[in-house]
């Protein structure tokens, strides 16, 4: 009888369910994507640059390291064992790649953390929170849209990085390397980024007033990074729990062609718990206008 009314009701029901679930809001999502376009370009270019620059040095590295391998042969087995790492693994292309990759992950983590920390604090800082909050969009959907848009941007950055690193790898590697392992190593960039993104979102919804997004996110990322570096020097396995940078152990991946299930679960837990907590805190939070 009244198709318009029925349609309207259907739309209302659909909208309500979406809101209840805190589903993404298309407008906020698209707006966030647009506002991150420049940052996407800058980050993609920096990641490509770092990958291409460092990978282009592999041939020189290979030459030097092979010479050293011969020197190493002259030492007793015990000494070689004390070294902990087999030289063969390091000289191989994937060994070198995983060294280079650790810096790429550092950059990726900074990018992800920036997006996470900015999610809510940006609106508060720029005094746009009261504008956004008066829109008929639930807080849950705002947060969802923001997280999803950050994820999309990170995915694009990673895809661009992966392609350029792969082309570069193909052209510098001295011997054929396993493409599957290359992919498995590279994709941990995304995993680490998701962990940092969720920690960032949590910080953003808890910390009342973020003075400077850059300072906060860099402080946190570098703290974890330096813990990771100390861990590498000391070879202390317990310290691995303290920093997401060590959750995806590249030498483990290379050896077993799989991820360490233990740390994968921990990562998943961190992501789920911090995202869930962000929703809880953000829903209840007082947001001051002006």
């Amino acid at each position: 009888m009244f198709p318009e009314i029925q349609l309207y009701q259907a739309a209302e029901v659909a909208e309500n369910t979406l809101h209840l679930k805190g589903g993404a809001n298309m407008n906020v999502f698209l707006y966030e994507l647009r506002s991150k376009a420049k940052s996407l370009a800058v980050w993609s270019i920096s990641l490509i640059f770092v990958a291409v620059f460092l990978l282009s040095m592999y041939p020189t590295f290979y030459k030097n390291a092979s010479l050293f391998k011969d020197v190493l042969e002259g030492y007793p087995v015990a000494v070689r064992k004390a070294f902990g790492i087999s030289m063969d693994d390091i000289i191989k292309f994937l060994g070198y790649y995983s060294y280079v990759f650790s810096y790429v992950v550092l950059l990726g983590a900074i990018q992800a953390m920036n997006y996470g920390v900015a999610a809510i604090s940006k609106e508060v800082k720029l005094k746009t929170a009261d504008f956004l909050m008066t829109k008929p969009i639930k807080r849950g959907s705002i947060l969802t849209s923001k997280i999803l848009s950050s994820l999309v941007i990170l995915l694009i950055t990673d895809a661009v990085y992966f392609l350029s690193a792969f082309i570069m790898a193909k052209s510098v590697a001295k011997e054929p390397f396993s493409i599957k392992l290359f992919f498995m190593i590279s994709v941990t960039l995304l995993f680490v980024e998701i962990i940092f993104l969720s920690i960032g979102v949590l910080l953003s919804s808890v910390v009342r007033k973020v003075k400077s997004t850059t300072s906060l996110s860099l402080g946190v990322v570098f703290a974890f990074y330096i813990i990771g570096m100390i861990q590498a020097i000391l070879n202390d396995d317990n310290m691995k729990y303290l920093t997401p940078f060590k959750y995806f152990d590249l030498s483990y991946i290379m050896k077993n062609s799989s991820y360490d299930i233990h740390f994968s679960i921990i990562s998943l837990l961190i992501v789920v718990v911090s995202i869930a907590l962000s929703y809880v805190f953000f829903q209840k939070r007082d947001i001051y206008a002006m």
Partner: protein
Amino acid sequence: MNIYIKEMKSSTKSLLIWCLVMIAFVASSMGKYAASSSISGQSLNDMISKMPDALKSMFGSGSFDLSKAIGFYGAMFIYIVLMAALHASLIGSNILSKEEDDKTAEFLMSKPVPRAKVITSKLFAALTNIIIFNVVTFISSLYFVGYYSKGENTTGDVLKLMLGVLALQFIYMSLGLCLSAFLKNPRLASPFTIGVMLATYILSLAIDIDSHISDLKYITPFKYFDAKNLMYGKGFEIIYIVISALIVVFCIGGTYVFYQKRDLKI
């Protein structure tokens, strides 16, 4: 003077956190040295010394004698340098740009204080922060390295290293100041400075891997006061001191020039 005091007050909390982190870092890494000192035997050191530079940097130990406390400190030192550079870049790039970012620029600039004086006060506040950071790290390093070094005199080495860090801090702070005065958008100042800082850091790693590009060492401050060089090599090289001084002078000069003419974003 009022601006200086205000700046010092507003940075107290973050400076305190940084100092505590530095003390904790030095204490925990040297504490770990005591726990791990048995593993690095003489033959291991011998082997490490034969490694090509690229591999040394991959292992993170460099050419340091890890069986000695000061050697272990030297191997860890790059992280102190990195944190100091980060702190200095953030201070330098925020101290001027935050006025515009926080919408307090109007308030500040309507006071009967010339811009040059604002810059000078803020410059001194940033310097004070950096020097306190450096001194706290220096004293805690001195204490903890001395504690584990079994009576060896390490004061000279630690002093040399920390002087190198101080120079690096000056460089990145003045770069941050200059960029925040120069860039149109005040919000870009700190990402830009950090970007430059990280790029030069990665370049310094690349130089370790590939000696063909060692000429690039003149453009990355991380190579100016290299821990290895300061402790075992030539010490402070005059060329790097001159380059650093030039960078600092130009950046600070640039800050005054650009900020005086700046169209503040309000």
